[in-house]
């Protein structure tokens, strides 16, 4: 019923455009529709179900799926030659929303999105986190609400009596206990992709220390942001973790799967990763392992946890051959029903608020707890970044971050290097 409602809304919207040759007189969306989606830790079962339902609703639309773990590379030549698919889910290696917007590859959805509804409520009021804006314009709709946080093994912690951290102070204290009790470095991340630490630990820390404004300043490389006092304080915390020997000395060589394996094998106790972790490592999880999730505890005592969602958006190509079918598909996807299904299929959250997962037996416990926590402002404060950081800035900052975490530079030297990278980034724009 809900789908029907949204479908009708879509048809009305499409028809109201008036200049659309793809819409038949009977108001049906038809023609060919190409969809590109990355298949990573979340798998593809949700996509298959959604697409099958869409086909049922719009039998006159022929859908071609371009999907896989390397789909961004495989489809590159199509985008370069100006023959992109109609709809694209932007996620995974080789994709960059910011770059696509800068290259003019995505359709401006600012006006269209105003009339889209989710189960009768305007979509603009239904997002947990609003769409990224580029000079005030919207080019994509945030589909997946990926929250980077810190994972631990609940069973292990309970058995050994380790306290689950609630702030940076207790985080350090628990890591100290684990180091002493297990003779391991408690914290691991992937050094081959240092942005995991940047997005999983530093962004929440910056959010907690300086709110959305500080986040925006560091992401856009604003002059003086990286050498500012709150950033230095955060980096001092990282330096402290390194000096205490809490960061695995071998992290620099680990790719994301290896670091996750280390974590599952109790070679380390904490890892900052997104919600895809349980789904991705499903086959490797030891039997007595129970995923526990907290927002990264980088905030000072007495403050709520900070979460900075990493949104994976759905967009329509500027040069889409069938923009109306593409709009109908995007419209179709954003419902509470599919948001619930998404959590069931992937163990993650879709970016739609008001979805009740608390009684859903098909959703893993960690997600129910995380969902409840994220929706409780007393426990968790959500900070929002304006858009993803450009790879041109993220790469040099990530490199300096590795040096800091290896103990080769100080927090002050890191901020200086980051500031220089930001200056170079500003000059290149």
């Amino acid at each position, binding site marked *: 019923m809900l789908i029907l409602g949204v479908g009708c809304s879509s048809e009305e919207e499409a028809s109201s455009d008036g200049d659309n040759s793809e819409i038949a007189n009977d108001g049906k969306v038809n023609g060919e529709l190409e969809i590109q989606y990355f298949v990573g830790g979340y798998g593809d079962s949700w996509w298959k179900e959604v697409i099958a339902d869409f086909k049922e609703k719009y039998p006159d639309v022929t859908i071609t799926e371009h999907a896989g773990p390397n789909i961004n590379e495989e489809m590159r030549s199509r*985008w370069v030659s100006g023959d992109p698919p109609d709809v694209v889910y932007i996620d995974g290696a080789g994709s960059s929303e910011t770059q696509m917007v800068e290259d003019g590859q995505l359709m401006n959805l600012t006006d269209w999105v105003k009339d889209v509804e989710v189960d009768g409520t305007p979509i603009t009021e239904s997002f947990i986190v609003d769409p990224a804006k580029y000079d005030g314009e919207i080019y994509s709709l945030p589909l997946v609400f990926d929250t980077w946080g810190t994972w631990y093994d609940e069973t292990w912690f309970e058995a050994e009596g380790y306290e689950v951290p609630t702030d940076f102070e207790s985080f350090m204290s628990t890591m100290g206990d684990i180091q002493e009790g297990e003779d391991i470095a408690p914290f691991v991340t992937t*050094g081959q992709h240092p942005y995991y630490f940047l997005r999983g630990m530093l962004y929440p820390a910056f959010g907690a220390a300086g709110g959305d404004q500080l986040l925006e300043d560091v992401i856009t490389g604003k002059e003086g942001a990286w050498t500012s006092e709150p950033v230095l304080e955060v980096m001092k915390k990282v330096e402290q973790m390194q000096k205490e020997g809490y960061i695995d000395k071998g992290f*620099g060589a680990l790719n994301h799967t290896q670091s996750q394996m*280390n974590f599952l094998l109790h070679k380390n106790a904490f890892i900052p990763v997104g919600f895809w972790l349980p789904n991705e490592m499903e086959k490797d999880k030891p039997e007595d392992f129970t995923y526990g999730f907290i927002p990264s505890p980088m905030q000072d005592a007495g403050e709520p946890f900070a979460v900075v969602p990493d949104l994976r958006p759905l967009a329509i190509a500027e040069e889409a051959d069938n923009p109306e079918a593409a709009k109908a598909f995007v419209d179709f996807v954003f419902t509470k029903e599919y948001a619930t299904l998404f959590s069931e299929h992937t163990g993650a959250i879709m970016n739609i608020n008001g979805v009740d997962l608390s009684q859903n037996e098909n959703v893993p416990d960690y997600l129910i707890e995380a969902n409840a926590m994220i929706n409780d402002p007393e426990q968790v404060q959500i900070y929002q970044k304006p858009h993803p950081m450009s790879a041109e800035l993220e790469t040099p900052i990530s490199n300096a971050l590795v040096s800091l975490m290896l103990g*080769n530079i100080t927090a002050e030297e890191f901020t200086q290097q980051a500031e220089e990278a930001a200056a170079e980034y500003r000059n290149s724009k």
Partner: protein
Amino acid sequence: MVQSKKQKYLFLAFCLIPTFIMFSIFTLYPLFSGLYYSFFEWSGSSENKEFIGISNYIQLFNDEIIPMTILHDYFLVAAKVLGIMVLALFFAVALTQLKIKEAPFYRIVFFFPNIMSVVVIGILWTFIYNPSLGLVNSGLQFMGLEDWTRPWLGSEKWALPSLVLPSIWAGIGLFMLMLMGGIANVSKSYYEAAEIDGANEWQQFWKVTLPLVWPQIKISILYIVITTLNGSFIIVQIMTGGGPNNSTHVMGSYLYEQAFVQYNFGYGATIGVMILILSLVTVLILQFFMRRERVEY
């Protein structure tokens, strides 16, 4: 006679034209397109390209990472040439001149890594070097050498040297076989004559074997240099991704990062042009220094 000459040229054209067409499509075209794109600012993922003249080349000369990547490349070249040639020569001589019963078995063992994909080799050695689960650190601990354990690929100091071992391991077999072929062609009469003259085995190696397999050694060295400058990218990409903190980036991996991670495809193409130039210059210099009269006895 005229007819026969015409037929000859027709036959030559018939043989060469398809080859030239393939060469043009798969070698010349990418080469010139790389050169063409190096004059553009282009993300590599859209139609939008902006001609910027030699700006990418100016950026190349001001890029602080580039000298580091060149040094890393030549470090790998030197280590691989030295390691592979010394070991390949040693094993080739041992397996051809010493009467080892299991020689055919060893030949297979040494050649085995050559039939493995570089990707597999990279992944395998990544596990071997794993700081907490890997063979290297476990072996050192087992031998009581705990102080020697370190995060091999995770250390800015040790990551690049750690890449040398898998590269040598993967390369010995092929060059060993090439040298064995050369050694097998050396007439036994030279060794008999040397023996009669009182030369010991070491002297026979220096005075007979080495000079007579020099052509194979020269080709092997050139091959190692070219493949390292152009191909070490794969092992770097798999084992370290150029990190930690650029400490293992070679020109190829830096090209990849610029072109496909940072979306500076035009600049990536410029780095590609530089790799080509450096490879050519290096090979020419090596050819010059390795020129030598053919030895005949």
